[in-house]
């Protein structure tokens, strides 16, 4: 798994590439925590996780999202999941995580 964190005017974008599974969930969780910290420090209220280049995420990755959401909620930062591929859409539906997170088609989010 590779990732990058970019600052936009109104959101922090975390781009994730590859797979989030048993070998990479810890790095993924650390990246999200880092991004939440950056959003907090910059006074930005939206964190967008760009899934366009993500192959899939196992339950480890999904639960890392939950840990990140709890941290983000404490900082009043909203997490969005953007541009999931067809596999991720299925996984989000099967896990019912599409009920826990807002899924958007692009990284441009509007509250």
């Amino acid at each position: 798994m590779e990732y990058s964190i970019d600052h936009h005017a109104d959101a922090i974008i975390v781009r994730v590439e590859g797979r989030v599974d048993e070998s990479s969930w810890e790095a993924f969780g650390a990246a999200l925590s880092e991004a939440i910290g950056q959003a907090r420090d910059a006074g930005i209220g939206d964190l967008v996780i760009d899934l366009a280049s993500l192959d899939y995420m196992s339950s480890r990755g999904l639960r890392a999202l939950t840990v990140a959401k709890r941290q983000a909620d404490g900082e009043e930062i909203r997490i969005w999941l953007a541009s999931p591929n067809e596999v991720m859409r299925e996984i989000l539906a099967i896990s019912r995580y599409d009920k826990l997170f807002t899924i958007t088609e692009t990284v441009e989010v509007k509250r």
Partner: protein
Amino acid sequence: MLVRFWGTRGSLPVAPTAGTIRRKIAEALVAANGKSFADADEAERFITAELGFAQGATYGGATPCVELEAGGSYFICDMGSGLRPFGLDSIRRNGEGHRKTYNFFLSHLHWDHIMGFPFFAPAFDPTATIRIHSAHPDAEDALRRQQEEISFPVPFDWLRADIEFIQLDPGEPYEIDGVRVETARQQHSHVSYGYRFTDRDGRTAVYSTDSEHKPDNMEDEAAFIDFFRQADLVICDTMYSLADSVSMKEDWGHSSNLVAIDLCHEAQAKSLALFHHEPTYEDKDIQRMHEESIRYEELTRNGPPLEVICAYDGLEVRV
């Protein structure tokens, strides 16, 4: 090793209503579309071939009780309401010469996992031997308490079988009537324990129910991967969706189908039986959960395929 499921539902026993049965019959008649059948056997072949499991059968509603045919004596995991039909069936087998020794292994002492024992007919047989294995030191207290007069009309002391309580230490291997048994601590209210059974042929079945895998304890899952390692069959608590297990059902002590599949993938287990079904789920809900689990396994497979089966009352799995 043959694994036989006598009870697969969590929390409390359930049964389909008259309306549910009528609906199944109506849908089956519609599916038959005017076809005639020579006899009941032909009709059953049609059901097997043309109807889904939820439509043509039922996952059942008895609470946990799983039997392993792994040696000369009986091996039973938990004493849910499914223990009653097992007990009656064992009496039939005893009449055919089966040894009357019952080795029980308790995951924990919550009522859905012990409620069948007051109805366990062999417990009244003075020639039967009952060994109740548990890592809990208070297993006997729990069983005696549920048969106190305020709760049940037949006191524990009226049971005539030779009953022995044996405490197990987690992490220690035991040889019991030709089967190697190991137990591992799990996260659940008042703690629960999983069991790993290996027979003389090296066939392994793992019973891991009522075990919560929380998002902030994922680094502890290495112990479960080791406990499940290369098992022929892993029976797992898959009561909730992953989303429910981390939100409204967090700390309820149960797990999800996705976590069970991921653990089994990492452990290179061969088969997973989805178990401890949510009591509010109808058969179609459980079937949907099973189909989604099969799909998730396909999407995330990174090695040999894991067979995902869905436990139901009456299922037999040979490993």
